[in-house]
Each structure stands twice: as structure tokens, then as C-alpha cells.
């Protein structure tokens, strides 16, 4: 198959804001004034930093309660997993599954896929480049759905406010959970997918 040239080979560089093909020696895009970089600056170390931070926050996010439910004076605290199990035992396996996917499967997948991409890029691996490109786009696409749990807790806590009968309040765990989502989003944004293909080109850094 006849592949197109790399922009860097023709001394061109993409502006992410307006899509203009800028000359590589420019610091700012001649059309929109945005800063341009051949590759996102310090992409690999920044992505690792956000990834490790989000992994650390993921521990309290799972151990601490995210919600406090008080029904007729009987208070109980729920973590994310105990919430999922409660739905499962009550027979609503579909909702249990949606919450499980959004708050456990998606973050864990994001951690492992980003780590895989980072390690293979650091080794300048030429293995499955097309597929790894696709994996990154997948990570970008699904990442923010983990925000689901935060929004559900917000809605439920706003609604169930019957002083004497029943109240629901958010708890500290939801803060850590939300921060995990934000940090993994930053991690995905600081990763530069062009690094995957740089294994083919020698002079780019």
C-alpha cells in the first residue's frame, strides 16, 4: 500500500486549534496564534504523572463511602461496589451492570491501556501501531463516561431530602472518584498519539 508522507518529513506541523499546516519552525500558528508543538511537550512523563496520581486516588475512591442513606433513622453508607452489589441482589442486574462498567471497568481499562501505550512508545515498539492508534481513540471516547456515578449521586442527593423520612447525602469517596476521572482525562489529553508512529521515523523527538 502506498502510504502518505509524514508532515514532519515535509517540515510541517499540525495546529490542534484550527487544523492549519504550520511550518515546524514557527512557535505560534500563523492563522490562529495558538502555541504549536511538533509533539505535545513532555508527553510521556506528564501522562505517567497523571496516570499514577489517578491510580493513587482510585484507592480511596473505592474504599471510602460515596453516599450516605438515611431511611427513617436507619443510616447506612455505600461505597461504589456495595452500591453495585445492592442493585445486583435486588434483581436489577442491568443497572448494576451499567454502574459497574462506568465506575470499575472503564477506569481500570483506561489505566491499563494508557500504561500499555506509554510503555510501547517508550520502547519505540513497531508492534501493532494501527491497533494501538485505535486503542487510544477508544480510551479518549469512553473515558468521561465514568463521570456517571458522580452525576447520579448529585441527582439522588438533591432529590431525596425528606427530613423526617429519608435523606441521602454525598460522601468523601465521590470527590476522589471524580478526581480520578478528571486526572485520567488529563492523562489522555497529555498523551500524544503521534508518538506511536514516531518509531518509524528516527529524527523526531
Amino acid at each position: 500500500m502506498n502510504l502518505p508522507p509524514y508532515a514532519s518529513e515535509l517540515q510541517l506541523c499540525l495546529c490542534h486549534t484550527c487544523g492549519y499546516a504550520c511550518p515546524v519552525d514557527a512557535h505560534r500558528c500563523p492563522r490562529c496564534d495558538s502555541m504549536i508543538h511538533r509533539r505535545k511537550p513532555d508527553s510521556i512523563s506528564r501522562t505517567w504523572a497523571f496516570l499514577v496520581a489517578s491510580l493513587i486516588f482510585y484507592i480511596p475512591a473505592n474504599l471510602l463511602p460515596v453516599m450516605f442513606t438515611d431511611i427513617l433513622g436507619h443510616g447506612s453508607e455505600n461505597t461504589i461496589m456495595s452500591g453495585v452489589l445492592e442493585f445486583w441482589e435486588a434483581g436489577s442486574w442491568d443497572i448494576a451492570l451499567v454502574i459497574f462498567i462506568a465506575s470499575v471497568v472503564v477506569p481500570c481499562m483506561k489505566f491499563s491501556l494508557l500504561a500499555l501505550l506509554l510503555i510501547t512508545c517508550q520502547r519505540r515498539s513497531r508492534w501493532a501501531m494501527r491497533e494501538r492508534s485505535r486503542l487510544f481513540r477508544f480510551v479518549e471516547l469512553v473515558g468521561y463516561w465514568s463521570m456517571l456515578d458522580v452525576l447520579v449521586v448529585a441527582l439522588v442527593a438533591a432529590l431525596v431530602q425528606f427530613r423526617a423520612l429519608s435523606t441521602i447525602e454525598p460522601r468523601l469517596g465521590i470527590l476522589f472518584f471524580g478526581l480520578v476521572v478528571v486526572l485520567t482525562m488529563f492523562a489522555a489529553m497529555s498523551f500524544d498519539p503521534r508518538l506511536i508512529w514516531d518509531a518509524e521515523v528516527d529524527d523526531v523527538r
Partner: protein
Amino acid sequence: MAVHSDLIICEHCDSLYQRLPLKRGDVARCVRCGAVLERGQRFNLEQLLALTIAAGILFIFANVFPVIHISMQGLSNEATLWQSVDALAQGRITLIALVAGLAIIFAPMLQIALLSWVLAYAYAGRIAPGFKLCMRSLEQLRPWSMLEVCLLGILVSIIKLAGMVKVVPGVGLWAIAMLTVLIILIAGKGIQRLWDELGVPVE
């Protein structure tokens, strides 16, 4: 040498292409990595502006009317988007209320406002004052606008509460559902076409 705006660079693998004219519904993909390079334009500027104004009206509905009503033993309650965000603003966890507020209220609101501004001028064939800043902000806001997640969150909350109280979806829910579709149509990457269509000068 071709004019620079006739060139497309794939943001995922840095491949360089000559731009080809696309028809409505066409998608140009990168042969090296498979990413979408460009989509054929679905709407003209007039239609985009109309959709943005519609989004503005729906946004007001989505925020003024409650999204869910519940009732329990003669007591009833309802919540709007703002009240939900406010419910998170408690002591140590207030930070997360800011993130939620950005995701479901401020980011969509700014997207609609900025789009109305640049599109209203673009419709008259002019470049809006502050065009560059507006377009840059639109690029940065996109990942933080999460109305589709909010929509799923409302549905999950309805089912979650249905076991314990009587739940009725509110007007706000329908407005959010329609607004979500509109934001996907108007605020995507396709808006970058304005740079070419308005012929923003290159220094």
C-alpha cells in the same frame, strides 16, 4: 507547492494529505492509522446558526425546569440541574461540585454562547471580534461538556429511585435529551471549517 489550507494533517499519526472535496455524509479516513480526517458538512452556516439558537432555548428549558419529580408518603420533591450540582457542594467535597457544574451546566452554556457569537457573524460573512479566542475556547471546552453522561445519569437515577419512591421524569429531562443531540451536531470538530470558510488571514 500547494496552498497550506489545502493540506490536512492527521492528528493521530502526523500523515500529510491533500484535501479532497467531500459530499454531505462522506468521511475521509487516514489510510495509515484509520482516524477520521474530515467529514462532509451536514449543515450550511444558516442551519448551524438556527440549530445553535434552538440549543440556547433548550438549554434554558433544561435548566429552569426540574429533571425529576419524586413523591413519597404524601411528600414530594423535585430537582433541577443546578440543585443537583449544589447538592454536591458540601464542605470538603465542594471541588467535585465545580467539576460537575462545568460538565453539565457551564461547558454547554459557554459552547452555545460562543457558537452563537461566531456563527452570527459568520452568517453575515464576517469574522467575529475575538474570533480566535472563541474558537480556541470551543476546542478546549469540548472534552469537558458531558451532557450525554448527564442524560444517562438521569435515567440511572430514575431507575435507582423507582424502587423506593414514586418517580416522574420532568420537562427538563426532555429538554436535556434534545439538547444533547444538538450539541453533538453543532459543537463537534467540524466547526473548524469556519477558519477556511471565512478565509481567516494567515500572517
